[in-house]
């Protein structure tokens, strides 16, 4: 107990703080860093990165002993490979699934809108985390092998000197796809677990649908229904490697997913909705 009667001097408000979207994003990042699962994914990604780096070093030497050789487009695209992207889907679903759902669970969204936070600020703050997190995770998977390759063999290394120019835009598109999908899924749920289930269900469900449709129609373009297939397609397309999905199907599929899940997130996080 205080030994004197507590008082609170009036203090004038100084409008020099961060933008609400950034305050929201920072609060979320701190929350994520406190989670045990966050640490688990940190180790998992570190392991995949080590394997990637080992591949950069050993794979090109298999043919001609002791000599590093430039590799093809598929190898470049492989830096953002299936295992990494699958792990990332899991991680983003786990983190992103709780972004909006946790606010619903604790009923703090109406309180946010009772502060000078607009609907756009809220979505930007959450979107920044949902999209920024996968992008920041993908970035070392591009830059580290690229840097190692450059250090080992310069322009003659297995990773193209221009690889980041292909892979960073791919990582950005993939991050948007993952982030916006999980944001929309999270807004459908009222618990973080529900958000995770919605996100994973969305990804896997669309994956099954894509496989079914492509089998029924006999056209692999229908794989574009699957967000997982889309995420794998973008690095290949931007590196110029061949794959089942072409530019048009991948672009269209991504656009449809982004529009749909963003629409869901926008509708489900309106101030009026928050009061329901």
């Amino acid at each position, binding site marked *: *107990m*205080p030994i004197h009667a*507590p*008082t*609170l*001097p*009036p*203090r*004038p*408000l*100084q*409008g*020099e*703080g*961060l933008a*609400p979207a950034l*305050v*929201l994003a920072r*609060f979320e990042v*701190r*929350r994520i860093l*406190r989670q045990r699962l966050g640490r688990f994914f940190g180790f998992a990604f570190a392991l995949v990165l080590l394997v990637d780096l080992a591949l950069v070093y050993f794979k090109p030497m298999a043919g001609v002993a002791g000599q590093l050789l430039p590799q093809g487009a598929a190898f470049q695209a492989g830096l953002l490979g299936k295992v990494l992207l699958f792990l990332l889907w899991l991680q983003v679903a786990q983190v992103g699934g709780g972004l909006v759902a*946790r606010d619903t669970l*604790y*009923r*703090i969204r*109406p*309180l*946010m*809108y*009772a*502060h*000078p*936070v*607009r609907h756009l600020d809220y979505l930007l703050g959450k979107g920044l985390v949902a999209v920024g997190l996968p992008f920041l995770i993908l970035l070392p998977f591009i830059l580290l092998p690229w840097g190692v390759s450059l250090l080992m063999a310069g322009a003659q290394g297995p990773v193209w000197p221009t690889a980041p120019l292909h892979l960073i835009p791919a990582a950005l598109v993939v991050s948007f796809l993952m982030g916006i999908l999980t944001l929309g899924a999270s807004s459908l749920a009222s618990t973080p677990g529900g958000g995770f289930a919605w996100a994973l269900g969305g990804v896997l469900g669309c994956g099954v649908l894509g496989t079914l449709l492509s089998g029924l129609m006999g056209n692999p373009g229908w794989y574009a229904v699957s967000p997982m297939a889309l995420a794998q397609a973008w690095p290949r397309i931007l590196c110029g490697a061949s794959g089942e999905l072409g530019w048009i199907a991948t672009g269209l599929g991504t656009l449809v997913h982004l529009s749909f899940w963003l629409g869901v997130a926008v509708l489900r996080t309106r*101030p*009026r909705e*928050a*009061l329901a």
Partner: protein
Amino acid sequence: MIRFEQLEVRYGSRVALQGVDLELGPGVTGILGPNGAGKSTLLKTLLGLLKPNAGQGWVLGIPLGSPESVRLREQVGYMPEYDALVEDVSAFEQVAFWGELSGMAAPQARDRAHEVLHFVGLDESRYRAVSGYSTGMRQRVKLAQALVHSPGLLFLDEPTNGLDPDGRSRMLDLVLKVRDQLGASVLLSSHLLEDVERCADHLVILDQGCLKASGSMNGLRSRLARRCELRFLDPLTPGQEAALQELGSLLATRNGLYDLELLEPDPVAPFRWAQAQGAVLVQLTPRHDRLDEVLLRALHG
């Protein structure tokens, strides 16, 4: 500070507030009404969370539903009725977060979070996650987040919800301190009449979305001071009963007792009237109505 003209708010087809004309000044204003009366809707409309479907309203000079209402929220604090706390985060971190969301710089918000948590009596437990807090502590964290940016106007939605008598008393003391020490105006929504009676300078009574009564507590109390019960030696004749109007409004008659609201708060007036009418007044009992009687009368006529 707050003005409404024929305000109407609907949830779909359901009318939550209808034809509300109201003007409120500084001080503590109690909003009374049964569950579903529209109290929370009124607060949410004031915050700009709900747009009026008809009519107009101004809070601190800013029109409701206008794009400027975001700016309004820098000047008001809101304590919601329900738990709006992140369970795994400490009270300090949450209050600082809300301060930053209100436009404060991070160091200033952190300093202020310490001060405001000290003010509400949570200084020693401010670093603990709120999941371990009692109901009273949770309510005080909610009050702290509403106060952190030093708002001039505070909306408190059922601040004593779920509190034991001691916790309620401490919360109401805090509300009064907010008014007296910080000079902030408070809109206190409650269905607990004693809370409103203890804190409020003004009173607004809502029922089924309609404004039933509003005014200052002093005015209300002076009206209450005019209530009295009279008993005469002999039953009054119909003529005398009709003449009672000269004295005040006859509210009820039972077992020879006349329940009156006098025109003037003058206790001698009934004796003078009785003398003039040739009646013998044997009992005059001032009726000190409680607030619940006022509320019931406002709600049910």
